[in-house]
């Protein structure tokens, strides 16, 4: 007859198993498991019926992507709830991590709603930050064009972003008639629109070419475009894989509003879009130099492109402006 030698716990890294259960314990465990199963996957008729195998099932209408209906998020009670959230949670949080400095606010003073805000895009922080930087009369009456494939691919995500940030789905790759019509209708209805025409966050810190959607909507609705430049959010929360310490970090951000632009007589959407892109680039120039230099360069068409130099990746990265202030407070002073 053999038996256990006196031992206790084995190697520390081996998870110590719970003591042996008694039969009574096992019974109750089984009962609990049965109860859990009943609660989590209830059977018909408490749960949904299964479809007979002999019948073809029609493809479900998923109602996602550009098909997602965001009308509910613009009903009055939802708007009220969002306004409370935006002013009391989103705005303080955005200020906590990004500490935004606003420039060119004078350009918004006598601006009549609705308008189309067009901004560069490098971080998820951009949207809540920009919303919280808008004057009150815009802030609670603005929708944000968001990529249908990213923010509207699950029911819960679609509902979450529609509620918190008043997003509407648009397709980034091409102009989708349904989503364009929705945006145009909303603008016509008095809603301002935030749109990031780069079609996604910057992968390397440099700008990407603007797509034509914003200019198209301006032409179609006749409302002005307000160029916005957001600088520094890539240091707050970089896109994964983009340069920068991953995760959320407090860093200073500058948001510069430009003066409104409207398409000239006979100017087509593509040329207007280029003008909008140059206007945002001029704001970027103003951020890194000064207003007067930027102005003179814009006048002579010498505004540096936001796309950065076309050289080897390391030199593109090397040419990026440094973080807005020392990322670390523990530096020893370098004599200058």
């Amino acid at each position, binding site marked *: 007859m053999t038996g256990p030698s006196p031992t206790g716990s084995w190697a520390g890294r081996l998870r110590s198993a719970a003591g042996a259960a008694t039969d009574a314990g096992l019974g109750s465990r089984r009962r609990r498991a049965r109860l859990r199963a009943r609660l989590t996957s209830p059977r018909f008729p408490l749960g949904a019926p299964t479809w007979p195998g002999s019948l073809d099932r029609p493809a479900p209408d998923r109602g996602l992507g550009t098909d997602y209906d965001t009308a509910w998020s613009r009903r009055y009670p939802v708007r009220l709830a969002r306004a409370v959230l935006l002013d009391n949670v989103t705005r303080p949080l955005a200020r906590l991590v990004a500490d935004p400095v606003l420039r060119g606010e004078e350009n918004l003073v006598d601006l009549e709603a609705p308008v189309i805000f067009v901004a560069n895009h490098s971080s998820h922080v951009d949207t809540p930050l920009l919303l919280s930087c808008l004057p009150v009369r815009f802030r609670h009456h603005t929708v944000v064009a968001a990529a249908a494939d990213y923010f509207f691919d699950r029911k819960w995500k679609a509902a979450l972003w529609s509620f918190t940030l008043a997003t509407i789905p648009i397709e980034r790759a091409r102009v989708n008639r349904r989503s364009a019509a929705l945006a145009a209708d909303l603008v016509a209805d008095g809603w301002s629109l935030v749109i990031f025409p780069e079609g996604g966050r910057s992968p*390397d*810190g440099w700008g990407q070419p603007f797509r034509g959607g914003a200019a198209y909507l301006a032409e179609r609705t006749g409302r002005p475009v307000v160029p916005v430049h957001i600088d520094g959010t890539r240091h707050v929360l970089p896109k994964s*894989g*983009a*340069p*920068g*310490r991953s995760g959320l970090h407090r860093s200073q951000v500058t948001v510069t509003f430009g003066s409104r632009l409207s398409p000239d007589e006979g100017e087509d959407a593509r040329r207007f879009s280029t003008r909008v892109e140059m206007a945002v680039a001029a704001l970027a120039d103003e951020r890194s130099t000064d207003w007067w230099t930027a102005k003179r360069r814009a006048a002579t068409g010498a505004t540096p492109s936001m796309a950065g130099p076309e*050289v*080897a*990746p*390391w*030199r593109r*990265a*090397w*040419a*990026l402006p*440094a*973080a807005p202030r020392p*990322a*670390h407070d*523990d*530096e*020893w002073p*370098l*004599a*200058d």
Partner: protein
Amino acid sequence: MSPRPGFVLDVDRSTPPTLFWHGEGFRLERLPVGSRVVYAPEPLDPLADPRSAIRHALTHPLGDSEPLPALLRPGIRLTIAFDDVSLPLPPMARPDARQLVMEEVLDLAAAAGVDDVVLIAALALHRRMTEAELRHALGDRIYDAFAPAGLLLQHDAEDPDALVHLGTTDHGEDVEINRRAAESDLLVYVNINLVAMDGGHKSVATGLASYRSLRHHHNPATMRASRSFMDQHHSELHTSNWRMGRLIAASGVKVFQIETTLNTDTFPDAFGFLQKREWEWNVRDRAGFVAASKALERTPPRLARRIFHSVRAPHRLTSVQAGEVEAVHAETTANVHRQQLVAVEGQTDILTMGLPYISPYNVNSILNPILVACLGLGYFFNLYRGRPLVREGGVLIMSHPTRPEFDPVHHPSYIDFFEEVLTETTDPVAIAERFETSFATDPWYVHLYRTGYAYHGVHPFYMWYWCAHALEHLGAVIIVGGDPATVRRMGFRPASTLADALEIASDVVGPSPSLTHLHTPPIMLADVT
């Protein structure tokens, strides 16, 4: 007031107790009257404008080398290798010397339109650096420009595709180094020369080498013939590296060497007492000492370790040299000596030293027993030029808790070395013969070294070889306050107090022995006559 040189104090009845480091803590010990204490020179004044000093060095190279801007042309392959996390100690406050130098080099490369640039951490068989460590050493700007694009590499001494065999020296030593470095049009090596051992041909020939190459000089015979390895001209370790370095140069690898020296401003203000002479401690220093040592007594070792490893040293640059390897290194060595050399007359029967929490191989980790031995018998014992501080057959007394604790992530093979090898023998030659190959080729260690953050399987052997000269020279080694079983396993003797240790030592060196205490850190180099 200009910094005072180091000196040797003769202990008399009015000498206050002497500070001993003791791992993550300190001891105050009253040394016998007549003992000597070697104090390090005070930190030199740093360069007033390090950035322009670096620029000047790059454009006015030493020896037979063109200025760096003339070497940078569009279309060349440029590799910049840099010293790894083992330097400096403790890690220096931002910006790190490597960051300052490399930013200047990269500005020049960007201006010259060099597109093909790769950065390599020259870690030989050390562990890979973490993202936080790389960011600390290189700065965010460099990290963000190179790491996401896969251009910031860490030398992999076990990747057959990333190594190239350049030939064998006339002593039959294989020279096998990093392929990218060897096949670049220009290899820039950025050094931090914390001690006189660092730099020179050792940078490339060791930092970028493979095990096959390293074993020719990382062995007991070489280490016993390096007296000391801090003195390049009497060090077989360096002679071998110089042979390899010359072969590397002769194979057409163009090396532009940049060496920097730091002053010995080692601890921040809160720990100012650590680098002051005890009789000059003011109220603040004494309060700091009492507060720190009382608090540390009550702090669990794990937490104390974390606190100490977050210390950033206020080291500052004292010189920058750039150009051809040997010319640069001669100048650098002179600058290291200017900061660290202390003249000491005559040897001693007993040498005492307090070992701190850190060595080159446990940054952000545990100073395990093998590293304790290496720090005391390898590094501190060898901080001499001329003759060892302690006479042949003398006794070395070290103070350290020496707990049997190991970092399983960084030092996996150390655990097995401690359990499997030291239980059999502590003789470096026997260890090398019986066990080295089995550890060096163990596939699991190789895997952890290449993909995790582990030192190579053979690294604990090198630590033990580092002790070989001291083990051969000394009559006994005593560790004060160390875990007795652990200390005994390494072949040393445990003592609970310094008085006990001196009692044990007198059995070896006879009654009324002479005693010298090496008051380090800060680091110094004893010039023993």
